[in-house]
């Protein structure tokens, strides 16, 4: 299977690559629209700020390319956030594939932001992406902005307020956490993504 990881400018992308190789996949890391369009699976990773990531995708001329993809696409962390309409981070317009605006998470006594560490998720809409996972799987999160719960929400997570942890809109999937660093649960999710029909 051909698998493209979009070079969205983050520095620590190789952990995604290592995780996919452990599953037997052979990903290419690219910013070339032709290669991305031709791949059977596409991953949009992302670490950093929404404004910088959108500026980079714009500069690379990839915005419309990504919106038009018909194969399964998985956004990870910031990559998932970019699938939404807008982010309060840098007050930037995102890809607009999934309705909603990313909001800043609010710290509270005993509740630290960034939301960093392992947390449980609750499935609200079963999906092939989470096949074989327990009811409340643990995943590793690192983020300060979060996505609203809506029709596309597959699983939620609580940190102060509830937010969308896994989303799916047609062929676009998203994980707010890092499946590549989420031990067996994360490996299972990535394996499911590779097997989705």
């Amino acid at each position, binding site marked *: 299977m051909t698998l493209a990881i979009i070079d969205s400018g983050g*520095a*620590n*992308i*190789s*952990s995604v690559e*290592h*995780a996919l*190789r*452990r599953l037997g996949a052979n990903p290419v890391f690219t910013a070339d629209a032709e290669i991305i369009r031709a791949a059977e699976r596409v991953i949009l990773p992302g*670490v*950093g*700020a929404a404004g910088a990531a959108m500026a980079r995708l714009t500069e690379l001329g990839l915005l419309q390319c990504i919106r038009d993809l018909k194969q399964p696409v998985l956004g990870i962390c910031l990559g998932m956030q970019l699938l939404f309409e807008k982010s309060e981070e840098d007050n930037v317009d995102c890809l607009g594939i999934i309705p909603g605006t990313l909001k800043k998470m609010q*710290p*509270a*006594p*005993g*509740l*630290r932001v*960034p*939301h*960093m*560490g*392992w*947390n*449980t998720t609750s499935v609200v809409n079963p999906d092939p992406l989470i096949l074989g996972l327990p009811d409340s799987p*643990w995943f*590793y999160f*690192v*983020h*300060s902005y979060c996505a609203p719960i809506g029709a596309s929400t597959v699983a939620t997570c*609580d*940190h*102060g307020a509830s937010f969308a942890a896994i989303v799916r809109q047609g062929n676009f999937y998203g994980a707010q956490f*890092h499946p*590549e*660093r*989420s*031990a*067996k649960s*994360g*490996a299972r999710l990535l394996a499911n993504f590779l097997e989705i029909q």
Partner: protein
Amino acid sequence: MSGSVSNLARRIIPCLDVRDGQVVKGVQFRNHRVMGGIIELATRYSAEGADELVFYDITASPQGRSVDSDWVSSVAEVIDIPFCVAGGIRSVEDARKVLQRGADKISINTPAVQRPELINELVEAFGSQCVVVGVDSVLQEGHWVTRQMTGIPERMQQTGHRTMDWLAEVAQRGAGEIVLNCMGSDGTRQGFDIGQLKVARELVSIPLIASGGAGSAGHFIEVFKRADVDGALAATVFHNNKVPIPALKQMLSAAGIGVRL
């Protein structure tokens, strides 16, 4: 953490102190002994349910070099848990190399003491979540003070910082997490320095990781309950399997501490 609004788990973090391609461990930062192979231990901890792994090239700063990046790749390839790398990272470029090799976070200690602006620069380049600051602290004449270049005993120096002042500055400069290495308890297996950690906890609201002194599962229960730390880091008791991680997590859970099982 209240528990009702977030199930965020307390983290158990094994640390690989590496010298010359081997995992070593000293007592109060001296007399290092070889504890095992890097890949062997990394693989074991990932499989046993560790929540994060720290790789610390202890002689990088005292020898004036950056962390050995071939080892970073080799470890990143075999583990599926978050990976933090420390050792002689002095610039945004040094950090970028380590992140590109598969680290998820970088931890800085001596270079931050020598040039505190480095914290801001790293936060700006990679975000707070990526930047951990390690602080080596020791009690001296009634005050906690910090040390630098602690990886080689002959090169260890005082920094002129009072620990609590330095922690406040580190947080203010945007670090995403602090690892407080309490040198007085390091390697003694007599328990974490609860007194010092409680003071630090009151002072900083970013994640705080306790380090130094773990000798039994009870010490972990104590540090989470009494000092409200977000994670606990240890080396020897994990390397020699005196405290096996799966059993430790079962005990923490039974004691009402939220951990990932």
